[in-house]
């Protein structure tokens, strides 16, 4: 079994409807029919998820611009995924075929 944590990518889920009000964000999840509210820190994480990105990449982006703690950012990404407003995929890595030296 391999750990695919570093190959997971996250993105705002299709269908999630978000509106920013000052530094907070309200998100409507139509699948769960639930309204969620993000504080200022979570809003920064949310906005870093507008395209597919690994948790590491989101951490880099958010911690660089805000000074938030990396573990908090990572936790926030997972929480957004848990409540269904962020989707996740495992990045497919193209492995180059092993070098085959012709030794005829």
């Amino acid at each position: 079994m391999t750990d695919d944590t570093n190959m997971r990518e996250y993105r705002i889920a299709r269908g999630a409807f978000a509106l920013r009000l000052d530094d907070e964000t309200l998100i409507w999840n139509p699948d769960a029919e639930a309204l969620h509210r993000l504080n200022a820190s979570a809003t920064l994480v949310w906005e870093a998820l507008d395209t597919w990105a690994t948790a590491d990449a989101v951490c880099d982006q958010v911690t660089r611009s805000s000074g938030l703690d990396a573990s908090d950012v990572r936790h926030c990404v997972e929480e957004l995924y848990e409540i269904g407003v962020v989707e996740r995929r495992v990045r497919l890595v193209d492995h180059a075929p092993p070098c085959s030296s012709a030794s005829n």
Partner: protein
Amino acid sequence: MTELQCLDLTVKITARPTRLGDELAALYRGCERRDGDTPATSEIELQVDECDAIFSLSVGGAACDTFDCVRDLFLRASLEIDRQCVAASTGSHLLLHASCVARGSRAALVVGPSSAGKSTLAAALTLAGLDYVGDEVIGLRAGTPYAFGYPKPFKLDGRARHALANAFGRADLCIDSHDREDLVAPGALGSARAAGTCTTPALVVRPAFANGAPIGIEKLTRADVAESLADQCFNFASWGGEGLRIVANVARRCEGVRLRFGDIATAVATIDKMLS
């Protein structure tokens, strides 16, 4: 026969004897239907068996309930009108469980869960000279800054009436029982805007009554306001993202406060000042 307009609901009230209908119509003055060209969408019938003093309510021709006093009949009829209003207006309005009063061009939406004191506060503000817009069901529409209500009678219990009587020197509002609920015509307290009048919210108040507590005002963020409105919608789920856009637009235009109070007169003065 009376016809009422409550947002998109048009309801025909028939009564035997007619005095019952007249009494209910007096409570709903301001909600009279102005455009009577099309048939009413709903029908409510009030009836009394004079011999047995049994009051009965029918909705759409089907017997609904019986009561032993006219007060309970009217309370139930009022609840039925609200219920049908929500059903008839859900596709056209985002429907808030709120009260609304206005001073000039600025209105206050009072939102909160049941028993938060919305009706009492709206009644008090009406007694203080603000215009009553509506209670229980307030409609918001996409693309407009307006709130829509209908000046239905206030449903107040004896405790609320006692507090209003004390605060405004209106001994006539007192009734003997603290727990008994009753309908009070808006006209008995002050002025009301006719059903369907456009009113622009400028203030959102979340009341929290605590007996004897000093006045406490906590400013709400725009997200607080939008979330409070969404929480108190009858039909937010069916509007989804569009509903969120509507409440966010109200939140962007309004000031929002959580108002803790133990004295209704002080709460009224505070809200009135914020609206002025």
